[in-house]
């Protein structure tokens, strides 16, 4: 397959069509909706994906998360998760 499966910190990703990300009060979690289905995201996954807006780079997303949760060294975790998300076609590389 020719499709990219790795992501670098300088890249920008966004939620891919036909997925839609939204917060669900009833489930107290972020979910990805797609035709006739739903992926319920755990806390970290939701926090990462809600920042994948097609504008911010992965680096910036990592910076925001580290600031929000007062942690450091999250970059590798974020990239690993984004690569899984990319394989699942939840996200796409904008640039």
């Amino acid at each position, binding site marked *: 397959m020719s499709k990219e499966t790795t992501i670098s910190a300088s890249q920008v990703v966004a939620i891919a*069509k036909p997925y839609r990300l939204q917060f669900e009060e009833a489930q107290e979690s972020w979910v990805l909706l*797609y035709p006739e289905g739903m992926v319920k995201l755990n806390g970290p996954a939701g926090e990462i994906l809600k920042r994948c807006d097609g504008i911010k780079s992965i680096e910036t997303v990592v910076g925001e998360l580290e600031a929000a949760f007062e942690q450091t060294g999250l970059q590798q975790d974020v990239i690993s998760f984004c690569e899984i998300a990319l394989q699942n076609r939840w996200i796409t590389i904008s640039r």
Partner: protein
Amino acid sequence: MDINSESTSALADDKPTPGPPLWLLCELTYRCPLHCVFCYNPVNFDNVKNELDTESWIRVLRQSRKLGSVQCGFSGGEPLLRDDLEELVGEAHKLGYYTNLLTSGVGLTESRTSVLKDAGLDHIQLSFQDSTKELNDFLSHTKTFDLKLKVARTITDHDIPMVLNCVIHRLNIDYIENIIQMAIELGAECLELANTQFYSWAKVNQAHLLPSREQLERAEKITNEYRDKFADKIRIIFVVPDYYETRPKKCMNGWGNVFLTISPDGTALPCHTAAMLPGPAFPNVKQHSIEEIWYRSEGFNRFRGTDWMKEPCRSCSEKENDLGGCRCQAYMLANDPTVADPVCDKSPEHHNVEAAVANAQLPNKQVADEHPLIFRDAKSSQKLDKDGVVF
């Protein structure tokens, strides 16, 4: 309870409550320009004349969303026959639903597609009956094939994600390769090859529609080849006909678990065929709130969980996997909705499924001798109803 009340007190009850009705299916109408021989609308659909009005549908959408519904399907019949479809899609979108339109494509003009897209429609599932004009038009008893191709292009031109759905059965399963190729050419994001499940009109026509094992295995093999080869282009879903299984399906993912159907007259059902079941009538949104229906009605609690089970289900180690299978199938094949789904080989009535499967191995000429194919139309509906056919 007042029908406009949207209290969520049940969520605070002490005893464990089921999750929300994540999937809301609005069957806007049973009216349909097609006459498909495998239609899952009730055989007596022609008796239903009093469709909900726009205001009632909007109330359903609001109440259900408040309980936590996220997926909203608009189906039928043909939902495009409702001229308030655009308004309902718009409302559903504003409420935060992921909106799905399940359509034959008849009536989906360029301008309606454009308005639906602007209203926030997220996805269209377009049904095809076959990859050839001849068989499509024969099976739906209409001249709709060319129109469907045109509609498919209109949908992709408007950049609306499209899933193609083709009901698979004895008469078209041998052309599965052409069907897959067509879906790829039309740019579908996903293709559902849904083997006929034998309810309603498909049950009436079962002998004509149940494929042989050989047909099924060939189709599955071809599907897998295409799935590998075009993994990047299209997702292909192949739904196996459950008569060929030895364990039943976890029907609707559990009774009253995630799925809520509202039929055209406002009757709320745990699945779109449950109205066939004997017992008290299912609740109607004209009299009850969605919250009351989902959490507290007799109908939605009747087969919830595992407490209702009899043997062999009750002591079965696999009961949580399939929750005893389908209640409608138990009723149709064992004449009792409270017993194991006869698809299960532990069911004492499993021989009924085996007999149907054995019959399907016969050559076409010997299989289909009960009656000719019965097309779904008002006249046949009236006749089947008069003859006491309930499924």
